């Protein structure tokens, strides 16, 4: 076993949030390292296609408009102080990204160009064709290479460490390539490990999105917040659930039902296809459920945009439709359906990214910070606007990096014993020693995914949620019966799948607990047995604390309202 050097800031995850945090902590002079289970450019930030929002005030946009539309999009569950930070700082962060080298689309004057996105009346989405996430991710990695920030590539975290004062002081991880464990000592840890899409089947998310960070923080004592808020994206491909960007509708594509009707006219007469995602996904599901779909899908029609426009501005989904659905977007409408896409909830943080509250209104884990999809600030509340997730990663990644670096200066080097590694290593050896026949992690994951997609999706109700809860409990019990065929230590992906499944089951349990508790309909959480939003009882966040071998401990936090009182939400 080895022990790492002492880091001021150790970041888990090398997507946009993690790398942005690393760069900002580095700029503060902190000793930084990044640890990630895949090479940085393999991270799931890649998959964000359409763009990144910002109100550039020097061109007549108002950050207040962006903030209000985000608040409305969140169905008033987003914390408005955090949303104000996001909207106010967005412009500066976009310019910083441009200066780093992002090749944003330009208008005729050679300035940054924009496109429209859902839930917003003004075009304020900056973009690189339809691979904006990839373009940003590769540029941030260029910056990491330039700064020579150490990156532990292909390391897998098994637990967070706490010192005697209950302060997060590092973590235990093993190198996937060798199976060797190491103890990482750090004054602060920033969790930036992304989402949990694989809890569901199908999902737009990559296979690596397994909620590791949420589960690790949750197990170590940090609360998860608003976990019931799971976004279904309105346009995903049948089968594996690959994403078709909202930019298609932003650029003018229609949604049609079986009769060729633009059905959004009935659901959102003003914003039509560009209503917020929860609204569009629900409308599609109703069309499908009431028999106006085609084989469980509705149609996305891009034909009127013209071939050359599609190929230039939507080239990636043009290729995707061709490869994976055998459809030429310029000639045929594409069958699509709502699919699990994003977790609005996550590890509770404040606006600096801290997973603890110095004022003591809620209890968390000192020394731990979080940013990006794994965190819940909360910006997105009950429904995230398209192109706000990339913005979330760069604004709050930067803030978390800065806060961690400053905080690290104020605290002494942590004392932790290396005995912490023993337990995790023992767990691995126990898993490897188990002889077959046993269950397969992949089979259990599939059961979990289809259960979640059936009962905890666009429409939910008590009985279904209870069924899901019991099923997840039984899967948790069966987890310890998994047998891994691969007995080696080098690149044992069967082992990793098993550990990831353990994380995902904790996340699934939290999602269901939140969904059962919230007896109202708000944003992405739609209860057919409680049809209305209930501001009197439920204008509050649900905080879940992990308890070993018991249901989560439930707490509440009021929503922070600054200037926008809840209103009826019509698009």
């Amino acid at each position, binding site marked *: 076993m080895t022990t790492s050097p002492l880091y001021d800031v150790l970041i888990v995850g090398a997507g946009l949030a993690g790398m942005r945090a690393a760069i900002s902590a580095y700029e503060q002079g902190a000793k930084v390292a990044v640890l990630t289970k895949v090479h940085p*450019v393999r991270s799931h930030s*890649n998959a964000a296609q359409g763009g990144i929002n910002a109100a550039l005030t020097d061109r007549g946009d108002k950050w207040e408009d962006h903030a209000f539309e985000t608040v409305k999009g969140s169905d008033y569950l987003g914390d408005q102080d955090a949303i104000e930070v996001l909207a106010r700082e967005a412009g500066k962060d976009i310019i910083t990204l*441009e200066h780093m080298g992002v090749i944003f689309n330009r208008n005729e004057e050679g300035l940054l160009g924009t496109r429209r996105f859902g839930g917003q009346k003004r075009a304020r989405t900056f973009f690189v064709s339809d691979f904006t996430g990839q*373009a940003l991710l590769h*540029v941030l990695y260029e910056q990491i290479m330039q700064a020579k920030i150490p990156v532990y590539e292909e390391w897998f975290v098994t637990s967070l460490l706490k010192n005697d004062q209950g302060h997060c002081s590092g973590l235990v991880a093993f190198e996937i390539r060798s199976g060797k464990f190491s103890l990482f000592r750090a004054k602060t840890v920033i969790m930036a490990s992304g989402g949990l899409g694989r809890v569901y089947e199908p999902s737009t998310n990559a296979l690596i999105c397994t909620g590791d960070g949420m589960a690790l923080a949750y197990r170590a004592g940090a609360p998860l917040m608003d976990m019931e808020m799971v976004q279904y994206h309105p346009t995903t491909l049948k089968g*594996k659930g690959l994403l078709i960007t909202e930019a298609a509708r932003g650029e003018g594509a229609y949604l049609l039902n079986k009769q060729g009707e633009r059905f959004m006219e009935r659901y959102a007469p003003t914003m039509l296809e560009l209503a917020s995602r929860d609204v569009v996904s629900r409308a599609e599901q109703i069309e499908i459920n009431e028999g106006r779909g085609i084989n469980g899908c509705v149609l996305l029609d891009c034909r009127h945009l013209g071939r050359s426009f599609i190929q230039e501005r939507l080239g990636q989904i043009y290729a995707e439709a061709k490869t*994976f659905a055998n459809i030429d977007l310029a000639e045929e409408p594409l069958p699509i359906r709502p699919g699990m896409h994003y977790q609005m909830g996550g590890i509770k943080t404040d606006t600096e990214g801290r997973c603890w509250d110095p004022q003591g209104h809620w209890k968390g884990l000192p020394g731990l910070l979080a940013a990006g999809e794994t965190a819940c600030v909360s910006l997105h509340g009950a429904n995230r606007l398209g192109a706000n997730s990339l913005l979330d990663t760069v604004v709050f990644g930067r803030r978390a990096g800065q806060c961690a670096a400053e905080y690290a200066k104020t605290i002494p080097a942590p004392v932790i014993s290396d005995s912490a590694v023993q337990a995790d290593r023992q767990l691995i050896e126990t898993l490897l020693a188990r002889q077959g026949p046993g269950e397969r992690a*992949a089979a259990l994951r599939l059961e979990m995914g289809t259960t979640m997609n059936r009962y905890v999706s666009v429409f939910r109700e008590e009985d279904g949620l209870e069924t899901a809860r019991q099923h997840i409990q039984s899967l948790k019990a069966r987890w310890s019966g998994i047998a891994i065929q691969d007995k080696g230590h*080098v*690149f044992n992906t069967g082992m990793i799948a098993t550990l990831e499944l353990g994380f995902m089951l904790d996340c699934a349990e939290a999602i269901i607990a939140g969904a059962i508790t919230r007896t109202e309909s708000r944003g992405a959480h739609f209860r057919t047995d409680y049809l209305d939003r209930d501001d009197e009882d439920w204008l509050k966040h649900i905080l879940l604390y992990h308890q070993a071998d018991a249901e989560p401990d439930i707490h509440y936090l009021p929503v922070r309202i600054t200037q926008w009182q809840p209103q009826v939400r019509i698009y």
Partner: protein
Amino acid sequence: MKTTLRVRRFDPEADPPMGYVQEYRLETEPSETVLDGLIKVRETLDDSLALRCSCRGAICGSCGMRINGHAALACKTKVISVAPADGTIEVEPMHNMPVIKDLVTDMAPFWSKIRQIQPWLQPPGTAPKAEYTASPEAMTHLSGVMSCIMCGVCVSDCTVLEVDKTFVGPAALAKAYRFVADPRDAATLRRLNALNQPGGMWDCTRCMECIQVCPKGVAPMDRIMALRANGMAAKVPSTCGSRHAEVFTDIIKHKGILDEPMLAVRTFGLKHVGRLLGMVPMVLQSVFKGKVPKSGPLHRPIPGIHHIQRLFKRMRVKS
């Protein structure tokens, strides 16, 4: 349909480490990709089969491997498009990099070559308050190169890297072009001078394999050619590479046929007698194999040379 995946495996923990071929038989749907097949193997038949994969949509660049003898992304390769009548598909790890286990290769050498070209924007002086202005055409042109996902597929099948490990390779050169062609970058001349060194832009043999296999349409070889043109336009010191291009053109212009002895002499220059002498065995071998034209090694202009010269004139007017 019935499909057999013949996978070249490698077990680094066997004593001694061992390579072998394993066949997996499974059913695949017409819509499924080679990656779907491999995931099915891993999830239902043999969880010890190691591979990298993540997005399933050709954007993360994890699942580069060789399929029926050519590198590709497994997630973008339909079983139906590569399976012959008997349904057997050959799957191997990428070439030109060490294998860690099964289909997982060590990408460290790949990344060290990427780092070699200083892959970050180097703008002049202090940044403006707002964004840099740049033409929409320039940015759209760059997005064609920026769509490179660093999957390593071009490097795997690069025929130069197969024989010369010092070559910086197609992925790094395409990345270098991304900065050379960026109007915001101020290090163009320094970059071109660095690329002008041995192992750089002149070492590509234009076999086109990288264009053929690139899953994102980046066309690395075309970017390498653009780098050369940029280098010559910027008058970076001439090398055997650039002289080869110039002399080649000049000979065709004056003779209408390639005069190889002249090409060698003028490319190397009389200063490099040693390198010229080094070619003698090859020349002799060519003579024995009957590769020298009957008219002898020296060429006169071909009949109708004026047609060729007219083409050259027309090209000059056009450019």
